[in-house]
């Protein structure tokens, strides 16, 4: 199995958009790394977060919990956490479990960046 890792990059005129890109499986062995990264961003008052899932093969319940748990706090700070470029397997759970009612998703990274440039973000 490939080593799990998370890449973090920035976008926007003031680097205010953060792109978090997990690689590999988000399961019970790795979700804490993701949670740590998200909480670190929030402690830095970064509230425009894109989770770029193109390299992520799988998200378990704990991983979905990381995305959803902080969403109200993020939106109260006029930000959002959105998902971009989910694999078919990840998207299957997103749709089946109706996480789409809670989390916005975009089919590409560019679309998710554009969302934050628009009035909505």
């Amino acid at each position, binding site marked *: *199995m490939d080593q799990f890792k998370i890449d973090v990059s920035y976008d926007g005129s003031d680097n205010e958009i953060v792109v978090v890109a997990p690689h590999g*499986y988000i*399961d019970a062995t790795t979700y804490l790394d993701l949670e740590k990264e998200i909480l670190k961003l929030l402690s830095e008052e970064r509230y425009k977060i894109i989770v770029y899932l193109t390299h992520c093969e*799988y998200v*378990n*319940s704990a991983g*979905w919990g990381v995305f959803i748990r902080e969403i109200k706090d993020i939106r109260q700070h006029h930000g959002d956490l959105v998902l971009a470029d989910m694999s078919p397997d990840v998207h299957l759970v997103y749709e089946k479990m*109706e996480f789409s*009612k809670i989390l916005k998703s975009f089919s590409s990274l560019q679309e998710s960046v554009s969302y934050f440039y628009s009035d909505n973000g």
Partner: protein
Amino acid sequence: MKHRRITLDSDLKNLSKVREFIAAAASDAGASPSEITKIEISCDEWSANIIEHSLEGKEKKTFSVECSAAEGRFIVMYEHEGERFNPIEQEVIDVDDHFSESKERGLGIYIMREMMDEIHYEYIEGRINRLTIVKYLEENG
């Protein structure tokens, strides 16, 4: 397909071994990629539940997984001698309420119940937890 069985130590490092074992068996049974995903996700949730909760602190820290297929059904049977726990008795959750109430457990079981077609729980001989989960293989016709 023949019955396949593995027994593993209760260690989160073994989650990937279970996923690989399940995916290979489901593929051999003729499951579609979408069905394999649903089975794999369900088994990952239940494996993690056993390792993190049922077998935590127990003397005998192994669990077994057995796969079989018959009449268009793919069947996975888990057995362990840890804490008695019947997932069928758990309340169906509302995802939005679940997180707003800061609940930590229950979503994995809810995912498993949504992804699989049948779930059966038995407590045998006063020590063995057996969970049998079934996926109907329909998508390949």
